[in-house]
Structures are given as structure tokens and as C-alpha cells.
């Protein structure tokens, strides 16, 4: 904080700059939050950290690019098709790579999802090439004035869509029978299967669901941050960081932590140095873990009981 003071004093517009930085942090943070949610859904039903989660985000953006660009579909038609396509890929991934395993160890599962992400990335390279793609904004690109800062209408879209996804997920887990079954699996798998829940099907469903959420994140972020076949890895890494920071298996924690990492990064890039942007979020993460080894909102007892 000491380092910040002289910069702040020297700039008349400091308050609006900070506000601007926080707003852009919220935008990117919301994407981290979405990726972290995807991690959590799979982790809860399987105890797997799916390292291919970032690739789902990349694929969502890429499918949307193809549907809107060459195929010339309107946005509102392309959106569900792109999400559906990635969901199918997520389902296929589970069926081909995770389903056949008998009693897999956690480390071999990690390597399998890494191998899966290599395959998805390679596949995307063949399908779309190595260029960077863009998408038109969902509505106008004219910035909106908010207090003393400006935000793009696309940011409003992003925040709105993410808010809706989080709300729908909360309702789904609380009120539908399938959602309740998924929560039962998260709490205790053997017990869930004893009361007649088809655990294998829940695993499949959780992969489909987190693929869909990843795809949505990819679609809404592409107009602002562009997309290429290699973009998945870094988004996955940040999302994993958010999931861990919030406490694995805790969706609300993931959302809060995602925003936190996004804002910290954006403030660091704007006020200190953009070179260290990618490190500062991780430094915060490590500090939190050293003080509270189960993340901000994680339960120490639960993490002690989990095998991995």
C-alpha cells in the first residue's frame, strides 16, 4: 500500500482510474469465477480436478466464432448451438476417458485430464488453425458512463449472464431432484449409491454441466478478450486458482475468489506493473493457503477427510 500512495496523490483522476481498474477486474474475474464453478461441479461429484476445464472455455468461444462468422447465424441461435456442441464434447470426454476406469488413482486421473486437454487443444488447432479470432459484441460497442468510469455494454452482458448462471445453478442444486442427487454424491458417494442414486450417471452429468458452463464463459468473453486455440490453459489455471482460493467444492467461495483474483490482477496491472500481473494473483493465493490451508471458505475437516 505504501507504494501506491505517491501514484494516487499525483493523479487527479485517481478515484476514477481505480474504479475503472476494479470494473475491468470484475469483468475478467467473473470469467475466472465461471471456470472455477466448472471445476467445482466436477470436483464435488468425482473428486477429480479436470485440467481440461480451460479447453471447454476455449472450445465455446471457437464454436461461436465459426457459427457466427462463416455460417452467419444470428447470435441468439448460435449461442445455444455452441453450448450444446461443447456439452457433447464434455460428455464424450467423460464416456471415453473417465468412464472406463476402474478404481483410478487421483494422480492418474490428473494425468488423464491433462492428456485430454492436450487432445482438445490439438483438435482445436486442426479445426480452427493457429490464428486469433474475434466475435462481434452482443450489442453496441459504445461505452456506458458509470460514475466516473466507463464500461462496455459487453461487460454488462457478461455480468448479467454470469449472475443468471449462478442463480440457475443454485436453484438447480436446491430444488430439482437431479440437483439434489448431485449434492448427495458430493457429500457422500457410497451413501448416495446406497439410496439408489446412479453415481456413474451423476458423474456424466457433472461433466456435461461444467462443459456447458465453460462454453458459456468462452462465448461471452471472446468479444472482449479474443480467442485462440492456446487460450484455454491460462484460463484453466486462473480458474483452478479461484476454486482453490475459495475452498474446493464451495461454489459461492469460487465466485467470490474469482472476482478477488480478477480485481487484484487488474489493480496490479494498472498501478504497479503489468509484468507481474499473472504472478500477483498467485502470490495472494499462496499467502491465503499458508495461513488457511483449506482456502478462504473451505472446511479444514472436510479437506482432511478427502483422500486427495
Amino acid at each position, binding site marked *: 500500500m505504501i507504494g501506491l500512495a505517491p501514484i494516487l496523490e499525483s493523479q487527479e483522476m485517481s478515484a476514477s482510474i481505480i474504479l475503472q481498474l476494479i470494473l475491468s477486474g470484475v469483468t475478467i474475474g467473473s470469467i475466472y469465477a465461471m471456470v472455477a464453478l466448472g471445476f467445482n461441479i466436477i470436483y464435488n461429484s468425482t473428486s477429480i480436478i479436470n485440467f481440461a476445464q480451460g479447453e471447454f472455455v476455449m472450445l465455446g468461444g471457437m464454436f461461436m466464432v465459426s457459427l457466427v462468422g462463416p455460417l452467419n447465424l444470428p447470435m441468439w441461435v448460435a449461442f445455444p448451438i455452441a453450448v450444446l456442441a461443447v456439452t457433447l464434447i464434455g460428455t464424450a470426454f467423460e464416456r471415453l476417458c473417465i468412464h472406463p476406469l476402474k478404481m483410478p488413482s487421483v*494422480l492418474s486421473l490428473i494425468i488423464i485430464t491433462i492428456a485430454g486437454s492436450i487432445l482438445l*487443444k490439438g483438435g482445436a488447432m486442426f479445426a480452427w488453425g493457429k490464428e486469433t479470432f474475434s466475435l462481434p459484441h452482443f450489442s453496441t460497442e459504445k461505452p456506458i458512463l458509470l460514475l466516473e468510469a466507463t464500461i462496455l455494454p459487453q461487460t454488462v452482458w457478461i455480468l448479467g449472464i454470469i449472475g443468471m448462471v449462478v442463480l440457475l445453478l443454485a436453484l438447480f442444486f436446491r430444488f430439482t431432484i437431479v440437483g439434489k442427487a448431485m449434492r448427495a454424491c458430493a457429500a457422500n458417494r457410497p451413501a448416495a449409491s446406497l439410496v439408489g442414486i446412479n453415481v456413474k450417471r451423476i458423474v456424466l452429468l457433472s461433466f456435461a454441466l461444467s462443459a456447458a458452463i465453460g462454453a458459456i464463459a468462452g462465448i461471452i468473453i471472446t468479444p472482449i478478450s479474443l480467442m485462440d486455440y492456446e487460450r484455454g490453459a491460462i484460463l484453466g489455471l486462473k480458474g483452478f486458482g479461484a476454486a*482453490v482460493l475459495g475452498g474446493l467444492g464451495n461454489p459461492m467461495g469460487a465466485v467470490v475468489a474469482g472476482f478477488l483474483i480478477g480485481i487484484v490482477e487488474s489493480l496490479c496491472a494498472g498501478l504497479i506493473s503489468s509484468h507481474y500481473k499473472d504472478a500477483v494473483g498467485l502470490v495472494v493465493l499462496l499467502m491465503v493457503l499458508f495461513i488457511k490451508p483449506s482456502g478462504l471458505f473451505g472446511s479444514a475437516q472436510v479437506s482432511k477427510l478427502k483422500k486427495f
Partner: protein
Amino acid sequence: MLVLVALPMVMRNPYYLGIMVFMGIYSLITIGLSLLMGYAGQISLGHAAFFATGAYTSGILTTKAHLSPLPAFLAAIVLTACIAFLIGIPTLRLKGHYLAMATLGFGQIVYVALNASVDFTGGPSGFGEIPRIALGNLVVESQLARYCLVWALVVIVLLFSLNLIHSRVGRALRSIHSSELAANAMGVNTSKYKIQVFVLSAIYASIAGSLYAHFVTFISPGSFDLEFSILLVTMVVVGGMANVWGALLGTVLLTLLPEFLRGFKDYDILIYGSTLLLIMIFMPEGLFGLVKKLRSVRGRM
């Protein structure tokens, strides 16, 4: 052993020898990682950082401080050990995915720092003209000389590690792997052993890094990224992490695989991914697990 001595006599092609040299460098790291992962049961997704510390310390001390390679090499080991010790104390208290994330984060922070501190490390473009290793008048310059040096070190490290595994320390480590709680209850000072093996594996990585810097004579952050850390873990797991020999086997396979795939041009990434996937799906114990299974089947027959 015999194979190691015989290989360079058969294979005179410097290109192949070069691949073998890299295989040796990777083996140094993966042997340490297998001690950490297979025996102590702790994952590290940040070992590229220790490899980088070794390489950059050696590189900077020999080019900017004009030290000769041997003292630089020792300084790198001491520095890496200190860093690993300091990082290890808070990090190894973490478990499972939290530990994975913390080590991964540490690796990324080092990677970002190497890129950002341009004055010191040359930034993203790195720096070159690192002197070669010389013993008196004997300069390690040919691929054959490198091959001998690196594999001699691999044999030493391997013997040391095998010895360690069969000692009191090794038994303590395996007890941590099966159940840390139980090990603690039996009076094993688990956190001490975990940190010791973490530091040891970091030292192995530092040795490998110093060799790498002097062999390649040019280093840049690109060689020490997250992908490299993951590759190292993959080598250990594919080989079979319950065994140091498994780590060696995995290293040999995953170093050779990309060379075979070079002929497939852009398709290599797809074939590489599917090979990895198939090995893990059908041999979850790794290649060495398969070897062991085959042996026990033959024994029964």
C-alpha cells in the same frame, strides 16, 4: 548399466547422443520427483522452478560474476536447497489439490519473475554465452563427453536414491504415503521427512539445471514453464511412480516419443495426447506396473 556404457559405442550419431543427454538431464529431475511423489506421496507441479534456479544461478554466476562452473554449480545447489526449504515449510502442510495448486503457483511465480526481471535474467529473450564445463584442460564440449558426464551423475543420484529408499528414511517416507496420520501416530516426524525429501528432489533438479545451462549455453524462461513441470510429473506417472526405475522408464519413453512423432508434423500433438491417454487408461499403475504384473504372471506359470 551395461546398456549405458555400450550405447555410445554403437550410436555415434551426435544427434541421437544429444537426445540421450537430455534424457539424462530429465532423469535427474524425475528420480527426485519419484522420491517425492511415489515414496512420500506429495505432488509437485512446480519443479521447473528448481530446474530454473539451478540453470539461472549457474548461468548468471559464470557469465556475470566470472566464477568457474564448479563453484557456481555448488552455489546453485545451496541456493536451490534454501529456496526449497523455505517454500517447503508452509507448502508441505497443504494436502492434495491444495498442494498441487500451491506448487503450481510457486512455479508460475518464478516463471513470471524470470520474464519480468529483465536486468538480471535477460527477460523473455534470456541470455547466452554461458561457458562450458571444463575439468583442467578437458572441456566438456562433444556430445559424447556430455553424455558421459550426465549419465555418470544419473548413476550416482540413482544409487544414492536407491540406498535412501532401503534405509530408515525410505521406510518413513513410505509410511507417509500410506497414511500420514498413522505415521505420525507411530512417532514418525512426518513434516521433517517431507521437507527433507522435497529439498533433496529440488537439489536433483538444480543439478540438472546447472548441467542444462552449461550444455546448451543459452537459457530463457521458455524452457522452465508450467508445461515442463507437468511433463516431468507425467514422466513419473507414466513410468509408474511407485518405483524409481519406473520414473526412469517414463523419462526414456516420453523423451523418445516426440522424436518418433517428429515425422508426423502437426499431428504429433494429437498422437502424443492419445498415447498418454491410452497408457493411463489401460495401465493406471504406469509402465512399470505392467512389467511387474507380467513378471508375476510368468512366475505363477
